């Protein structure tokens, strides 16, 4: 790495970061009414000439103009001719984990020293001042999953972010929301050359995962045994001692008692697996080919893991089986190239094929710099048979439901967080310019490093 070449970058990041903080600093209007737009509620249809009202960051009313009482102190924004919809949710990104892909020192994507790295938490690396985030939110993406890259079978745990905030902690809405388990063949990396070592096959990877979960089960058992012993130890021993306030000397009291139990040694890797082993949080089970998919699902079933599916780009032959699993699918990227033996639209049409079978689908960008193009992937799926409303849901309400945040996000309904986008038209189309973005009811400045460069070099 050339230090001098990065001085400029660092300087710029500093300047940008300070700009960012000040740009959000002016006091925001507490009550905002977006009036007259075409409102895509996602949850209950489209309202032509609608009003979306929010106060203190929470949506308080959504309805036809005239039916919503607009408070006198409200800032009224004329949205006539505009389309108003909930902030978009990208269900897999590496936002905040990378700045310039080819510059290693700006990447914190995955820890490849071992395949089993569940104790990696993306929040430990998440860089809220990333220049990629303003670029992304200017296209109406207000929330995202940040996931480690897929090189490991268990690369760590995802965080769910919002794309604005006064501090890093405001960005990180839910830490460790889910854990990817990748079984796509890509994780098989030791098969060649002198570095050949276990695991070098899918069998090895599966055995390694199995062992990790078995070890975690043992670990859980050890802790549970310990907790039991500790509870026993802590319990007042009334049967031996007449009364707790006995006047007996402490030495006498301890005579009939065991030694306090020693806690097991903490193991961060195994500890990280526990919430997933206990079904408290979902595994994001990634496979592409039908064979890998079924192997991965078997593994998940073996340990009763709660899971959602990811990718399944080349599993067209087993879509009925996928539907029978009754789990949501993050499908794609739909731009994944077809296999030589597949028809040109084999992957493009997957969202529609899954939807037809009753599967809840979610669409993700699987990107960082280009996460802003998330809505276009959903739009593209409509060209291959996915109903429009379902495409919009796949990047809003379905995503919110899958990640367990639908009480706050994913649609325009009273009580939800005011993440609201105002655009010039169809949210899923490449031609549509986003005009305003609100996150937590705060109007986001429509600026990024890119708009600043544009303005600097635009003819005046």
């Amino acid at each position, binding site marked *: 790495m050339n230090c001098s*070449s990065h001085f400029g*970058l660092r300087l710029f990041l500093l300047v940008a970061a300070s700009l960012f903080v000040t740009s959000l600093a002016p006091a925001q209007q507490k009550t905002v009414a977006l009036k007259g737009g075409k409102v895509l509620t996602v949850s209950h249809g489209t309202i032509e000439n609608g009003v979306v009202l929010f106060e203190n960051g929470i949506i308080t009313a959504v309805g036809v103009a005239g039916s919503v009482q607009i408070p006198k102190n409200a800032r009224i924004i004329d949205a006539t001719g505009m389309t108003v919809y909930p902030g978009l949710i990208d269900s897999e990104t590496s936002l905040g984990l990378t*700045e*310039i*892909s*080819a*510059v290693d020192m700006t990447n914190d994507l995955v820890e490849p020293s071992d395949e089993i790295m569940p104790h990696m938490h993306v929040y430990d690396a998440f860089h809220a001042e990333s*220049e*990629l985030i303003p670029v992304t939110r200017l296209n109406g993406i207000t929330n995202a999953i940040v996931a480690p890259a897929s090189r490991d079978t268990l690369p760590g745990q995802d965080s769910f972010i919002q794309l604005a905030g006064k501090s890093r902690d405001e960005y990180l809405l839910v830490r460790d929301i889910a854990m990817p388990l990748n079984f796509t063949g890509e994780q098989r990396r030791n098969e060649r050359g002198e570095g050949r070592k276990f695991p070098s096959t899918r069998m090895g990877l599966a055995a390694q995962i199995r062992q990790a979960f078995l070890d975690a089960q043992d670990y859980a058992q050890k802790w549970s045994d310990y907790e039991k012993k500790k509870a026993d130890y802590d319990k007042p021993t009334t049967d031996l001692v007449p009364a707790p306030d006995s006047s007996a000397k402490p030495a006498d009291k301890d005579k009939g008692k065991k030694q306090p139990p020693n806690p097991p040694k903490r193991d961060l890797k195994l500890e990280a697996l526990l919430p997933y082993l206990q079904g408290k949080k979902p595994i994001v089970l990634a496979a592409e080919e039908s064979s890998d998919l079924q192997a991965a699902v078997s593994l998940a079933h073996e340990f009763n893991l709660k899971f959602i599916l990811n990718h399944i780009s080349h599993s067209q032959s087993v879509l009925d089986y996928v539907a029978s699993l009754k789990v949501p699918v993050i499908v794609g990227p739909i*731009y994944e*190239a*077809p296999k*030589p*033996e597949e*028809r*040109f*639209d084999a992957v493009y049409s997957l969202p529609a094929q899954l939807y037809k079978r009753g599967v809840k689908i979610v669409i993700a960008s699987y990107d*960082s*710099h*280009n996460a*802003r*193009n998330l*809505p*276009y992937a*959903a*739009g*593209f799926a*409509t*060209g*291959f048979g996915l109903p429009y409303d379902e495409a919009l849901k796949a990047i809003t309400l379905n995503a919110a439901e899958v990640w367990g945040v639908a009480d706050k996000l994913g649609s325009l309904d009273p009580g939800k967080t005011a993440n609201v986008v105002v655009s010039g038209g169809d949210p*899923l*189309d*490449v*031609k*549509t*310019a986003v005009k305003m973005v609100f996150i937590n009811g705060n109007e986001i400045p429509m600026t990024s490093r*890119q*708009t600043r*460069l*544009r303005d600097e*070099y*635009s*003819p005046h």
Partner: protein
Amino acid sequence: MLRRLVSRKPASILLCLVAVIAIGLAALAQDSPAPFPTDVLIKNAVIMTATHGNIPNGSIYVKDGKIAAVGAKVFAPSGVTVIDAGGKYLTPGIIDSHSHIALDGDVNEATSPVTPHMMMIDAFDYHDKAIYHGLAGGVTTSLLLHGSANMIGGQAIVIKHKYGVNRDAMLFPGAPRSIKFASGENPKRVYGSRNQIPSTRMGNFAVQREALVQAQDYMREWDAYNTKVKSGDKDASPPKHDLKLDALADVLRGNVLVQIHCYRSDELLTEMAMAKEFGYKLRAFHHALEAYKIADQLAAANIGIATFADWWGYKEEAWDAIPWNAVLCMRKGVRVAIKSDSDDFARRLNQEAGKTMRYGGATEQEAVQMITINAAWIIGVDDKVGSIDVGKDADLVIWDGYPLSSSAVPSKVFIDGAVYFDRSLPGFAMPYYKEGM
């Protein structure tokens, strides 16, 4: 064409022979089926001509694979096959001015930074399904370029996406030669990592300049020899042929279109200065993500750009990329094409072009031009393809949906008047292709 046929350079003769064979044998291709019907009347389409606006309820008469008539009403002989477009949009076939498909990874001869004698035709893998995938996205012509490991990578080919015909029938007849130059991070990384020159941008340009100086000397030797021959000197002995310098001499003589992979604005300027120093012309800068910073100079020099719609940040020299690049440059008078540089984008260049309407407000026709006529100009085939005008090749796309949108999908794709892709068909949706051909 004639000029190139009489040229002394084996490389150009080879290409021209290939082109002649392609013209002669296209219909007789050994492993392709019987001649495809190339006379057709397409009616009831919204025709986006790319050069003279839209024709709302238009028709196109195609004869012998060429556009014979286009308009609201056209004359066609009775009995000609009629295709009713059902009111759908119709555009010229998409032209991808920067592609690396169908090369089976043989994109860079990365063993020396100057390899102008590498001929893409020698690596052309015409069975690659990526040709089909592009076709299904409406692409009918692509410029297959070398990679950017070398300062001077080699000579490109232009193909039509006639998937299923034989190799030579896929080559664009009469397309001019293009040579790929590169600069910036890639060459310096590739050779620098081996502790060889170039490992800096200084080294990059020194290597390039050195090669051009050699080519100048070489060209002078040949010029002297030719002068002697002309003046009747029967004892004159020809200089030794050097494939590498033959190719570069052709650059200096202006016989090859120079296509340069270049990102940073300072390097664009350096490449322009070098071209001036050695007296050759540049056709287009590829990627050119900082072109917006020096758009006036590019326009003045009549150098086009083949750029991305919104790709950025994948490396240091792509850090100043902005999605307004295409339109900012176009407004300054630069000829702008949106290209793929990727198997993926090649399948949906229409969407990428659509983005220029959102970033900077390109008009519909300007957006279409960026993936048709402007790209054709960069390749040097704008007299044959790239718009719906009489006399041009009937390379046409009928679309399901509005072409410049997220959801548009080609319904039918015609090349030289024949339907090579028809979405309504089962299997691979290609009328003339069967697996295993």
